[in-house]
């Protein structure tokens, strides 16, 4: 009714904090290091007296929640950097970008973490980002070659259903079936926009026909992921638009194997989440250090069971148990980042006219 500024999880981020002991150890270590730094500073008196440098990272809401990667990432990075890492949460990916555009060059942010592939072109257009110097071998289904943004995790969009159901095996089959689905509005939600791109990437100019046939499957369209997933859990629909990794959450954190994701023949659209350094940052070295840290094992091993996405660089210890039970799409779909803005507009109009009939 009121209050439309709802935070929307950019992905299915969250989960139980498994690193709790690590967190307090690291916090202790951090205190010790700060003390040592302080002592060293006091000894050297006037020599190198500077305040502890602060790195400010804008990110989406679910990243910093108690169940998200935020607390563990902060502890792990601060253990080595002799700095303070501040997360500032600002809604979801789209809200992050809007906020940067509002703030312009005056932004406090050194790094923005949580944009995705469909926002990259718009983000670059702002001219606020600086090139990065990270060199890593990414475990992504595609080759990564962007000079401004570094990926930190990724996932596939998928329709999640109850395990007993004989789920359709393609978008086409779903459109022809009478399965009931809940989706998110592409105008207000990241997964909603993902589905728009998914249909476009798989069917191109035939996308309107798919939407026309999907119209009678759609129970309703929600503002964000939480509403849609809630509706699905309440039994309002047979399937909900989410991620292939959603069943991993239920399996690992809740030991509940009753949810599954449907594998579709056309392939699954990808979401790659990225971070970038701001040109106006007053801590450029620290920002570079964080981006390198982001693709290291310390950061990447936190991601799977807190953000419930695939790590961009699989850590040495591999993926957690339970991730091997997830469906592995045969084909990864992703539209070229530069083509997204124009296609997005076209796809939105097609979507609106198909579902407004």
């Amino acid at each position, binding site marked *: *009714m*009121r*209050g*439309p*500024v*709802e*935070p929307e*999880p950019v992905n*299915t*981020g*969250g*989960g139980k904090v498994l690193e709790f002991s690590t967190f307090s150890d690291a916090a202790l270590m951090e205190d010790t290091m700060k003390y040592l730094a302080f002592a060293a500073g006091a000894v050297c008196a006037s020599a190198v007296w500077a305040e502890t440098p602060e790195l400010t990272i804008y990110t989406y*809401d*679910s990243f*910093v*929640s*108690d*169940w998200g990667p*935020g607390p563990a990432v902060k502890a792990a990075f601060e253990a080595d950097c002799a700095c303070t890492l501040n*997360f*500032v*949460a600002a*809604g979801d990916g*789209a*809200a992050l*970008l*809007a*906020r940067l*555009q*509002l703030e312009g060059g*005056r932004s*406090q942010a050194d790094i923005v973490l949580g944009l995705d592939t469909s926002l990259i072109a*718009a983000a670059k257009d702002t001219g606020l980002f600086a090139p990065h110097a990270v060199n890593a071998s990414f475990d992504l289904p595609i080759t990564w070659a962007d000079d401004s943004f570094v990926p930190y995790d990724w996932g596939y969009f998928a329709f999640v259903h109850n395990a007993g159901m004989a789920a359709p095996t393609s978008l086409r089959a779903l459109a022809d079936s009478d399965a*009931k689905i809940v989706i998110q*509005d*592409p*105008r*207000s939600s990241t997964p909603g926009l993902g589905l728009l791109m998914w249909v476009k990437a798989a069917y191109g100019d035939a996308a309107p026909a798919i939407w026309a046939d999907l119209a009678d499957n759609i*129970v*309703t*369209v*929600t*503002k964000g*992921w*939480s*509403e849609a*997933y*809630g*509706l699905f859990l*309440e*039994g*309002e*629909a047979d399937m909900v638009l989410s991620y292939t990794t959603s069943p991993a959450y*239920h399996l690992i*954190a809740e030991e509940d194997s009753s949810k599954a994701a449907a594998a579709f023949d056309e392939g699954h659209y990808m979401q790659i989440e990225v971070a970038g350094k701001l040109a106006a940052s007053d801590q450029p070295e620290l920002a570079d250090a964080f981006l390198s840290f982001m693709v290291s094992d310390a950061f990447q091993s936190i991601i799977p069971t807190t953000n*419930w996405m695939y790590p961009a660089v699989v850590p040495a210890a591999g993926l957690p148990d339970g991730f091997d039970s997830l469906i592995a799409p045969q084909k990864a779909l992703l539209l070229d980042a530069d083509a997204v803005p124009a296609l997005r507009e076209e796809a939105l109009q097609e*979507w*609106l006219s198909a*579902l*407004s009939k």
Partner: protein
Amino acid sequence: MAERAVEISKRSGIAAAGFVAAVILAALLAVLARAEGAGLGPADWAALRFTVVQAAWSSALSVGCAIFLARALARRRFWGRRAMITLLGAPFILPVIVAVLGLLAVFGRAGWLNDLLGLVGRAPLSVYGLHGVVLAHVFFNLPLATRLFLQGWQAIPAERFRLAAQLDLPAPVVAKVLERPMLRQVAPGALALIFVICLTSFAVALTLGGGPRATTLELAIYQAFRFDFDLSRAALLSVLQITVAGAAAALALWIVPPLAFGTGKQDPGPRWDARGGVMLFQDSAVIALALAFLALPLTAVALPGLAGLMDLPVSVWRAALSSLGVAALSIAVMLGLALPMAGWIATRRTGLAEAVGLLGLAASPLMIGTGWFILINPWVNPMSVALPVTALVNALSALPFALRILIPAFQDALSNFGRLSAALGLGSLAIWRWVIVPRCRGAIGFAAGLTGALSVGDLGVIALFADPGRATLPLLMYRLMGAYQMQAAAGAALVLIILALGVFWICDRWGQANADA
């Protein structure tokens, strides 16, 4: 000219109204100043059409049903009546997502209603569509409208009903001479208020409307800010929304007739005109139906919440404290604005000033938040003023409710005691102290309670200004849902309902304390 018999300082009233208008216009101008080009498209006009249609239906039905419910409640005394009236305020303060899940548990595809229909072999009903949107809006607003009408009934002095009974007037005549004039006065304001609330609906309309057919102006504003980052379209849409709301308010307040019942006891005693089995049955049926309609979805929300209470994280309690702090501050700001404005309006019947009050509700919170973000950002870190800004915006959006509640009470008090006060030569302050506050305690308590409860349940602009360590309860609840913690989220929702009702109950109780004496 009983209303003019006494002068209370209009300066503070004008200052408060000016402040409200300035806060909102400054935000709008700030957004416009950053805007470049672009106008409105056909989709925006379609959104306008749908918005107005659903808001008109919603307000008409809410007010229509509320008249019957309030009449039944005004005529009957039964055990649990007070508790029912307080509890019925709950839908109004629920976070959208919780209310929608509660409604769908009852009316949805897999809801209780369809289970029941299945048992008797009927085809299931679909809740999604315009009727679903209206259903949800009636669920939200029926209790508010009912309270406004109840207040109207209470304003009819008990002596009038006693006189009617002595004259042995039949019920239809009592309705004609006492009740209908009161309804004619209360209804337009209630209609306008609910119309404006429904005008700014977004997530409810989209979810229960079943898809993009149910696109409202507020969704279009959201899209302009977030999806397109098109500030000029956002500002234009905000202006459109404010214009429609302003037109509705002006129209409604224009046709409110003046009314004075004269002095008397405020709480009507036994109602002789409502004796008889048929009327008792009628009233009982209305109360039972309303109770079922409002309480079933609330039960559907509360039940999973009880289970969730077990695994609530500590952060919920921290957030609950933040929410209470914001609520207290919002109440203070609201009173600071609403009391002088209501005093000003009550002495001169200027509908325009009340229309200014509606601005706070009609302007999209996203627009106000963004505008002030632009204004504040060059000077201070927006996060450091998150609390006051949130409290201010919450107070602004509660202001219209507060005015609608306070103004009739103020008018009543001044028309009854205005001449006496003038004869005694009471100054402005003395009138506040000896006439308005004691006579209008009930209305002030109700307005404060509503503001506090709304503020506890509101996401408002906090999301734009919030820092991660200081989330309010609704924000935390969304974070819990976003982290798959549906059960803990249900628990947090229950805490939220209890807190909001608690704040409401305390303020309302303070207001009623006088009535018992």
